[in-house]
């Protein structure tokens, strides 16, 4: 067995709603809170814009984890969007688990625009959890 010295760095795709979580990510930056660099943020207007297809696609293309972050339920900029998100993604989560993907690889979190520290904390904990799981091999395209 070869000795692997290099630490596995997972690739995580994060969908952040413009009004809360993306703003929270900006606030983490403004407050200079450092966090794991594994996360790539895609800005969407609302978490309800996130089509489950996007998440599956990320796994297909080789993402090791996917995070969807929106406003706290009840605080949605568009009144009700994140309630839809919650319902849709709960179903998706069950499907993803059924496919044999570890549940930690797909997470939904609520982070407000004033929770910069929480954003950083969530990024770190998600990155760490997925790092421990190792690379994702399910659903991947043969390339």
């Amino acid at each position, binding site marked *: 067995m070869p000795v692997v010295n290099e630490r596995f760095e997972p*690739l995580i*795709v994060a969908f952040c709603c*413009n*009004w809360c979580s*993306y*703003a929270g*990510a*900006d606030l*983490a*930056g*403004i407050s*200079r*809170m*450092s*966090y794991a*660099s594994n996360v*790539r*943020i*895609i*800005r*969407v*207007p*609302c978490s*309800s*814009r*996130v*089509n*489950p*297809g*996007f998440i599956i*696609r*990320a796994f297909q*293309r*080789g*993402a090791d984890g996917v995070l969807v972050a929106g406003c706290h339920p*009840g*605080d949605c*900029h*568009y*009144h*009700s*969007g994140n309630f*839809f998100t919650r319902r*849709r993604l709960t179903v998706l989560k069950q499907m993803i688990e059924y496919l044999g993907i570890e549940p930690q690889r797909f997470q939904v979190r609520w982070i*407000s*625009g*004033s929770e910069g520290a929480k954003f*950083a904390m969530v990024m770190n904990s998600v990155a760490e959890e997925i790092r421990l799981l190792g690379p994702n091999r399910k659903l991947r395209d043969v390339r």
Partner: protein
Amino acid sequence: MKRIGVFICWCGSNIAGTVDIDKVAAAAGTMNGVVYVDQNKYTCSEIGQAMIKDAIKEYKLDRVVIAACSPRMHENTFRKTVESAGLNPYYLEIANIREQCSWVHKDKEAGTAKAISLIRTAVAKAAMNEALFAVEMPITRRALVIGGGIAGIQAALDIADTGFEVDLVEREPSLGGRMAQLDKTFPTLDCSACILTPKMVDVAQHEKIRLFTYAEVEKVEGYLGNFTVTIRHRARSVDLQKCTGCGECLAKCPAKVASEFEEGLVQRRAIYTPFPQAVPNKPAIDRAHCRFFTTGKCKVCQKVCPADAIDYEMEDRLLTNGYGAIVVATGFDTHKLNDYGEYAYGKHPDVLTSLEFERLLNASGPTGGKILRPSDGKAPKTVAFIQCVGSRDKAKGNSYCAKICCMYTAKHAILLSEKVPGSKAFVFYIDVRTAGKDYEEFYTRAYEECGASYIKGNVSKVFPEGEKLLVRGVDVLSGALVELLVDMVVLAVSVDARADAKELAKKLAVTVNEHKFFTEAHPKLRPVDTQTAGIFLAGVCQGPKDIPETVAQASAAAVKVAAIFSKQSLLSNPTVAEVEQKLCSGDMSCMAVCPYGAISEQVVEERRGREMVTRKIARVNVALCQGCGACTVACRPGAINLKGFTNQQILAEVDAICL
């Protein structure tokens, strides 16, 4: 093939410090469709913007990616730059390599790698960007002001003075709010009512202002420029048209309740005007306490009313109006003292809150402006003022400083010395905070000229000792125990957000902080705006502040409203949903999830084979659509897309990230 230009900003050392710009530029040059890469120390500067414009022309760029700070910062600036170079503003894409990269990753290698990835993602999206066009939307040039205290009054007057119409909604039967309860104001000691009541009258008489008292906001729909608000006009049981305000009924009403305006120090009747200078100076019946409404018998007010203005049949009315902008000015509640048993409030009549003491000072108050003990009607010779009651107390009260108590307590001490000769004020404080013009001088006056003794130390307990009150604490500075036998104790109660602030926030779709104060859009640069366009904040509902600050904020909110109304129309947000007719199955799942009612059914005629058939499909009203995209996911055939955030664009971003 698109011709994409990438511009990388150093932001001084903010980005260049943790991201190897040259390496990033080299990598960007190899990306699909990129024909030009440049870097600049400050891209947002005039020189930086000029560079972009020149490059667009020189290299015939048709898409632009700027790698710089957050799009929430400068997206609009750069869209204008791109537009002035002849491109559609939505051909621009921003890679956030500052807030979400250089500022959060200390490791230069990791930061550089991430910056490259972010730019690749933006390039992939930009390649699919399409020209988007805003449409002009007419706006309703009438403002709604919620709350009739000094903040709401000032905002309403300032908006109305610019010539636009204002509706002012006040929950109580009269305008005035907290300021009407005050006696004098710091640091000038001018009479609160004398400066407030003329403004109240101005509101009532202003031709551009419609005043709705005894009314509350029930429901808010719509968006900037076109809000639709339902207002509940509570049944006043008094016909304002007929009532002359003679006051016959007030004297004869047999039902008595504690007066809210007088902080419970005296009783009012069930039919009442809150205070003598009320606007409108016409009563309302408090049905919860009215004898007729509770027992079915009485009707004394009707009998004595010479104008036949009493109407027991009156019902709440719901009226719906359109507004272009809303100012929230709902004020505050004083902190409830349930958890402060140590101060004997409610156990001894001579322990008062600061607002109760304020009423004792007031010439129109229960004592006619004399400071008298509620217990025996005698003037107190020694008064202990306890500051920070419910403030700066994360265990039992508010963790924040209520900001106004130091100053109003100094005022109380000064007024005590003036009104009761030979009296003595003891002020117990944790810190005295007097930041404000002429504030420090005012505080100095309290202890230098008016003889107030300031004791640094929070009182621990007040012991009723017969007629007197034993106040026990320490002087932190000397370490001496303090035991004062005083005639009266005044508690400087903290300022709370309104108990129902959260409910109103929900109606307005704005947010509150952990203390239920409304959240401003940016703590420094947008202190009057909320995150919801077209809704502005004024006064203490946003956070504790004194009268000058409140007035300043109210005027600022008014200007914000006037700025919106200065145009006939607004440009719509072009990132709206769009239906592809041939894919739409007409099952209307999209309609069910749209929070704005922006999707409706449309019947279309189509050729199917040889015949023409009609069928229904979804249609998006671009004026109503706010671009959340919830419909795009609900659509089973995938017929709805969101412009600017299309499925194809987002998938391209996913692919670029996972490359």
